[in-house]
């Protein structure tokens, strides 16, 4: 420890956190640049900068600005939504393994989205269905977990897991009775597919609302991580705050699911990795989750599009492939129990 830490611990704590956030910003920029180079048309890193500064052909301009940049932005926003939802759910349940997918909210959302697709609906109707499904799943899991009044994290988590497998069974059922022609797109959607990306605005607005609300509540979130009783002794009105966070986390999840389908890994891994990197305080963890979650999905999507020539892999496969080894590595290196 340096003497500076003793003299101005506040300032050096800020500096450590900002350093990490700075690294995440650089990673995000690299992610975007790589995403803009990847695709069937060959545009290198240099080519990307030519495009950005207006020195490239019209075709390159169009490919970058109309296809690749929107897709990368979409990936970033979705990753950020999922990571933030995960960060909120983990503190709500006081369990680093919790995320909205574990609780079955995305499952409920997916069931209703699939129903909409089977019914021949498209576009906004699918979104509305998925959103309704997410809300229904949320009410179900909280209603059942609350039961006779106790509302312990363990009970909530178990209820969520049971309901999630229930939703999974319904999804399997829908897939097995679905017409052959639709099957491939349904399965693809379930694994998470960014090629459905159409309109960036709803996701972006949701993300902004989510970030502002969580930053406002950030110190309360820090307290909630201490558990209900301890948080109450430091002045938090637990009941109301838990509901607010639950609704916010569900909104973020629903929006992510509506946009890209099922990508379950980001919300689980990103906040935990950031905590292991020393960002426990939600005032740092929220912006860090946005940057890291967004970047993770941008990288994953770039890899998904370019790993195997002429094959577009589902991005959910790639997030797992990137996330699992990092997670296990950090867990073993730190030698800490979850």
């Amino acid at each position, binding site marked *: 420890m340096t003497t500076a830490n003793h003299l101005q611990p*506040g300032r050096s704590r800020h500096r450590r956190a900002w350093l990490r956030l700075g690294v995440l910003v650089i990673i995000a920029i690299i992610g975007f640049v790589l995403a803009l180079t990847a695709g069937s048309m060959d545009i290198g890193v240099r080519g990307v900068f030519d495009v950005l500064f207006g020195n490239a052909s019209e075709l390159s301009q169009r490919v970058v600005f109309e296809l690749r940049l929107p897709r990368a932005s979409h990936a970033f926003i979705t990753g950020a939504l999922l990571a933030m939802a995960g960060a909120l759910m983990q503190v709500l349940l006081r369990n680093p393994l919790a995320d909205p997918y574990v609780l079955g909210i995305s499952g409920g959302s997916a069931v209703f989205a699939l129903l909409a697709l089977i019914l021949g609906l498209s576009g906004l109707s699918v979104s509305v269905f998925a959103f309704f499904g997410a809300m229904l799943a949320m009410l179900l899991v909280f209603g059942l977990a609350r039961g006779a009044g106790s509302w312990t994290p363990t009970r909530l988590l178990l209820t969520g897991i049971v309901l999630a497998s229930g939703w999974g069974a319904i999804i399997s059922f829908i897939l097995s009775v679905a017409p052959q022609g639709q099957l491939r797109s349904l399965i693809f959607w379930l694994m998470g597919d960014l090629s459905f990306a159409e309109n960036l605005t709803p996701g972006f607005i949701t993300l902004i609302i989510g970030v502002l609300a969580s930053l406002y509540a950030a110190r309360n979130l820090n307290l909630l991580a201490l558990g209900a*009783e301890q948080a109450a002794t430091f002045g938090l009105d637990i009941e109301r705050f838990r509901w607010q966070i639950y609704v916010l986390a569900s909104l973020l999840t629903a929006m992510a699911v509506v946009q890209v389908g099922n990508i379950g890994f980001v919300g689980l891994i990103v906040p935990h990795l950031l905590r292991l990197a020393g960002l426990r305080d939600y005032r740092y963890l929220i912006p860090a989750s946005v940057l890291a979650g967004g970047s993770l999905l941008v990288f994953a999507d770039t890899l998904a599009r370019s790993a195997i020539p002429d094959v577009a892999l589902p991005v959910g496969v790639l997030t797992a492939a990137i996330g699992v080894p990092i997670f296990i590595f950090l867990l073993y290196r730190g030698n800490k129990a979850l």
Partner: protein
Amino acid sequence: MPLLQTQQLTLYAGDKLLCEQLNWQSAAGEIWAVLGRNGAGKTTLLHSLAGIRACTAPQCRGEILLQGKTLTSWSRKQIAQRLGLLLQDYHDPFPGTVLDYVLMGRHPYLHALQWETEQDYARVNDALIRVGLEDFTQRDIQTLSGGEFQRMRIAMLLVQDPQILLLDEPVNHLDLQFQHAVLEALVNTVNASNKAMVMTIHDVNLAMRYCTHALLFHDNGRVESGEIEQVITEQSLSALYQYPVKAITTSGRSMFIAD
């Protein structure tokens, strides 16, 4: 005016009567030991006094007054500025540094978007020195031993700096040296800034040494209270623990041992 007061407080845990129509009060400068067998209601009393166990019939009847006003008429934040509680047995699932953790003790005094000032950090540093953890600021809490974790949480309570300190078994996990160091630090805080303290404790001799008053939670809801020298005797302890207790005198102090 007493800092903390109960009027006709009756507490149940399920069907078990813990205390009946308890009239008790604590003034500034008093340090109370709460003694009793396992399950006698010590923790329930502290949780009720802190307002984290709602006082609703049929489990709880009577009044709890904080600085003369009903507890429920204060907001959670106002309570947190006046009264702090060290919970017993506590586990934290997330990694984070000792500094991050102890700093949260300042929460009751900050607005939603306000950051801690260097004065707040100075308080943290001061509290960590008092519990012997000044070199631990950057340590991950998940690498702390049980005793170090306990001392960190006591530092957090010192940083919260409430006028009434409630502690549920504060010397849990602490070695002999730190039992005394921590209790001395707490007693010094109480005396220096005119606070009141209530702690549950199983070590009668530590209670005798550091506390001024005692509350004895007998079975059947009977509670004895008063100045510690008067309340704690061979007879009362033998009845309390349902086990023969004997006083011996050594170095001018009377010590209680199991016979």
